[in-house]
């Protein structure tokens, strides 16, 4: 019963512990299955939030419109394929919907597969695109490596004053400029 309640609550808050009652939180401590549910929900939410928002480059619409065959011109290969797929002059809505759905599934599948391939280095992409060595110098970045290294040293000194801080050797792994 408590598992059912916990899983309903977890779905309601995408697995976020902040919004759960203490009863459910203590249940999560004991129940591996519910913990797993919570983790899956949180991962799903993180994945949804981390999907990049793509914008078409400026002028793309105009370029596409320019390339579309004008009336009276010989049909292009795209149109010929479309006619082969949908032979009637007037497209039947059922076939069009089925074709659209198939295309949507194929695109979604492709995007998902691509996302899976890219998921591990997703966060790394930002780092990978910014190192000075790859951008032809530090001048394009808001900060140079030397400046960042100096800030890291200062921050580590502050962190070392925390009671349960790791030793410096661990800090050198956790904080890097790249």
């Amino acid at each position, binding site marked *: 019963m408590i598992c059912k309640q916990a899983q309903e609550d977890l779905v309601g808050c995408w697995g976020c512990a*902040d919004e759960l009652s203490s009863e459910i939180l203590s249940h999560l401590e004991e129940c591996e299955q519910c913990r797993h549910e919570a983790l899956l929900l949180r991962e799903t939410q993180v994945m949804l939030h981390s999907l990049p928002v793509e914008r078409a480059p400026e002028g793309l619409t105009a370029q596409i419109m320019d390339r579309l065959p004008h009336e009276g011109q010989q049909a292009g290969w795209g149109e010929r394929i479309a006619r082969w797929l949908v032979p009637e002059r007037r497209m039947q809505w059922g076939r069009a919907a089925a074709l659209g759905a198939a295309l949507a599934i194929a695109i979604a599948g492709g995007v998902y597969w691509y996302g899976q391939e890219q998921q591990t280095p997703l966060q790394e992409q930002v780092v990978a695109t910014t190192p000075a060595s790859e951008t032809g110098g530090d001048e394009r970045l808001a900060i140079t490596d030397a400046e960042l290294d100096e800030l890291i040293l200062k921050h580590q000194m502050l962190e070392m004053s925390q009671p349960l801080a790791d030793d410096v050797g661990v800090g050198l792994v956790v904080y890097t400029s790249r």
Partner: protein
Amino acid sequence: MKITHIVGNLSRIAVICTVFATIASVQMAEAETTPLSILRRSINARTTVSFTGLRTVVVFENGQRVREVRQRVYSQAPDRMRVEFLTPESERGRLHVSVGSIRWDYHPNTNRAVRIEAPPVREKIRNRLDELDRIAQTMTLQHAGRDTIAGRPTHVIKIYTAEGVTVQKSWIDGVHFVSLKTQRFDGQENLRSSTEYTEISYEPAFAPGTFDFEPPRGCTVVESSRPAEPISLAEAERKVGFSAVLPEYLPRGYSLQRDRANVIEVQGQKTLWLPFSNTMETLSLFQRRARSTGDVHQGSRSITWTDGGFCFTLMGPLSRTEMRRIKQSIEP
């Protein structure tokens, strides 16, 4: 009659003493294993226990491991430490040596050695023990059982926020109180970093020169001084010559340490340094006048951007999602 009476009284006294002694010893044993006392002994062990060991440090991002480094550690009480980076190949040869308040970090890839003057270890330990009591007041400490790490029996200590979110889990040697494994979690309880010893020896034989460091020939040596004593935010703003831009959003439990602000020089430029803490961990927000506008730089546990004529760097033990959320709430 009298003798019987005396013997009777003595027996009663003996029984009462035994009961009291048993209660006292049980209480003492319990006191030894309270999470707070174990953590306290673990902090003290840094200056009292010598050892050598092999450990793995792993850094995670959104539940994915992004970095894994293998290190050999030499620690000689009270204040000497040497950490050699063994793997991966890109980190091999990297070295950290500290003796007293002097610390050296050397990276062979950049052929750069940084000499840092840090507070003496004993001073750090004293401060840490004072701060530990504050953690015990704001967080929940739990003795979560026993486990074996690197062949050693350990106490498992869990630390939760008041809302029940696990922040840290530590495996502390049951005899020597050295922390043999530590896991740190973010606000969503995702693993953020893990450090684990796979080998440890408490009978180390340190070769002569283990804690010596001489920068190799041709190496660039950089000196980094200890920051000045912290000052109030108002004083720091006066000193740096501009007002601090504070974040509208901070992760739960974090607050600005108004009396621990500072002004530092970074590559010759005055920089305002604001610390934020949740008693367990610390964030730093650095603010200085921007020389130019540049691209956002995302480092490991840091993000730097320019806005409103300022350059900001946010650094700390947070996920990138949280970092970006704080960044978005900073509006000059």
